[in-house]
């Protein structure tokens, strides 16, 4: 019974972490239809931002988060307007190569500036847990899950309530119709990309005290984010969160209940994703909705 409870707790917390990894990618992919292969590197930049602020000035990562989000937004805006904008009409392979290249450049700059050493932030809560009987809930992961819920809620609220959000949804649903309605599509693309980057660095801040920070941490997270977004359904924030939790529950179940299952739980989770895509090619939540 205790093992089952711990399994449920761990699955939920991991689902929150996966939601964080995928949320920014989901937004930019859903709106611009560009697979941003540099998204993992934005997460990495956020993690390093949190790490250095913590290391040099002792700033708690959660306190540093708003400033890092603003910087992430500005960086995303700059990257879109200086680089991504130029390949919007280009074939998909050009877009993929460009974003992949941006990711590699960021990664190499990180190695040059900060070396390949493993790092981590260690605020007190990152090493503490809430204990309920034999079940324990690590505060760091709990905070990660809470931030994921908050960001998903904020994003959905922004998409539903604000004019800018509605414009983003309109562009995601039908770019031509949105143009006819007087929406500046390129500006919406830039806004979506900038918000996506801001969400990426916010994710980085949280993971800086949960997993290990290195210049190479981005790509594995990107792979998971792509899988989650495709399973959830293109452009669906709720579907994305659902995909994240399916992945988390499957992986954790194998890790807990199959001998040496941790080693291949990830593989099994991706088999499950393939099965879902065979049954529902558009993902669990279909096409572009918030």
């Amino acid at each position, binding site marked *: 019974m205790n093992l089952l409870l711990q399994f449920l707790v*761990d699955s939920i917390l991991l689902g929150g972490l996966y939601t964080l990894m995928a949320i920014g990618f989901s937004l930019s992919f859903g709106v611009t239809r560009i697979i941003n292969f540099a998204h993992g590197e934005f997460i990495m930049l956020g993690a390093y931002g949190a790490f250095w602020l913590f290391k040099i000035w002792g700033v708690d990562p959660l306190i540093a988060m708003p400033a890092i989000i603003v910087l992430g937004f500005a960086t995303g805006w700059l990257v879109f307007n200086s680089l991504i904008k130029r390949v919007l009409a280009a074939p998909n392979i050009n877009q993929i190569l460009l974003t992949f290249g941006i990711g590699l450049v960021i990664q190499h700059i990180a190695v040059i500036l900060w070396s390949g050493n493993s790092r*981590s932030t*260690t605020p007190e809560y990152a*090493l503490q847990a809430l204990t309920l009987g034999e079940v324990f809930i690590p505060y760091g992961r709990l905070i990660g899950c809470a931030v994921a819920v908050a960001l998903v809620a904020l994003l959905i609220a922004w998409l539903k309530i604000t004019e800018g959000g509605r414009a983003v949804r309109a562009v995601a649903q039908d770019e031509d119709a949105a143009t006819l309605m007087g929406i500046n599509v390129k500006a919406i693309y830039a806004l979506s990309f900038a918000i996506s980057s801001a969400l990426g660095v916010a994710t980085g801040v949280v993971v800086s005290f*949960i997993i290990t920070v290195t210049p190479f941490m981005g790509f594995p997270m990107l792979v998971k984010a792509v899988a989650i977004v495709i399973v959830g359904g293109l452009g669906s924030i709720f579907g994305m969160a659902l995909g994240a939790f399916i992945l988390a529950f499957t992986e954790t179940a194998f890790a*807990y209940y199959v001998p*040496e299952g941790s*080693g*291949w739980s990830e593989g099994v989770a991706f088999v499950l994703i393939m099965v879902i895509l065979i049954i529902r090619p558009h993902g669990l939540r279909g096409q572009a909705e918030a």
Partner: protein
Amino acid sequence: MHQKHRHLLSISAFSAFTALLCLPVAHAQESFKIGVPASLSGRYVAYGVQAKNGVEQALAVWRSVRGDTVDGRKIELILSDTQSDNAITVSIVNDLVQSKKVNAMIGPDGSNVAAAAVPPWKKFAERPIWLMPGGSSTRIEKEVGPDPYFFHTYAWAYYYHINNTAVLKASLGSKKKVAFVYTDGAYGRAHIDDARRYVKEAGFDIVASELVREGASDFNSAIIKVRAARPDVLYTLMQTTDAVQFAKQVYTAKIGVPYLVGTAQAQLPEWQDAVGEAQNCWTGVTTWVTGLKLVADPREPKLFPSAADWETAWRARYNNKTPEFLEVGYYVSTILALLAVEQTKSVDREKIKAWLVTQDYKTPYASSSKFMPSEIALHQAFGTMVVFQQVKEGNKFVSKVVYPKELATAELQACKY
């Protein structure tokens, strides 16, 4: 005809005389070339920088003690960047051996690139002497085989477990329960069989053996299963990146296992910095740690001073930076190569090989420089490692040596939760 013969004779005599005059000059101009393939960029850049630091410190000390040459030869250091890439490492080794014709190769650092360097080095019949202070993977040992020109100056992976189990047995006795957690990557899989073997040989029971995915976002399932098995010892086999996250999760879970055993990661300042309080009580194995009570070599006290004096000199040169094990390893290996040329008055690999096999110096690097056969390789030095435990003293952590007995500064302590 007679006159022609006399003319030829005088030319020959003049040529021979000139050649004789030039001989010492040619000898003086001949270099001793040391090739150092190092990961100066890319994923393993931290190791590469340590390799470079160690070699440069050795050359600086040599120049201050012996001068700019070795046996009248100019010392030529050829430092090449592997970019942490196996394919580039192959090209570099080809270049060092075939084009640059180095007399000795030191490095590369890290098991992956070191393994990549084996085939290109081995394919040359006239391959140079190879000293390897980085790379513990037994895959390298298997690929090199019993090669007479290969000198391993760091411990093979199984030495970690020989030393770890020795201290566990000495401190706890046998019949204790051990749980393993190992990654599915090259590191975990390379170590697990040897680790199990030596743990069993020491008389311990293995009560859990948990495989985890390299780079996983969560290790909690393995930690929960280990906790349920109630072992006396948690023995982990994973590289630094995973070991950072794992140590933090173990600390957070208050796992309740009295002894936490790691391998190479616990000695690294990057691991210690990254895990903070979670480093408490972990043990690790190394060939170097600050505070080793090792005395100077009586014959070469300036080249191989006591560990304390060596560290003082190092800190003076590198802005008070704490030396890391690779830096010490590259230092000792470079000095050995230079001494070999000086003692044999030659850069001939047969003479250098013969000298290296017989030499035996006290070094600042855990143990003497004497080479012995290992399981497969012919020449292995520094296999006796230091086991240490991270202990909090005041506001900082220190590495207390718990093995070998003659170097110990503390006894192995059970973790408190």
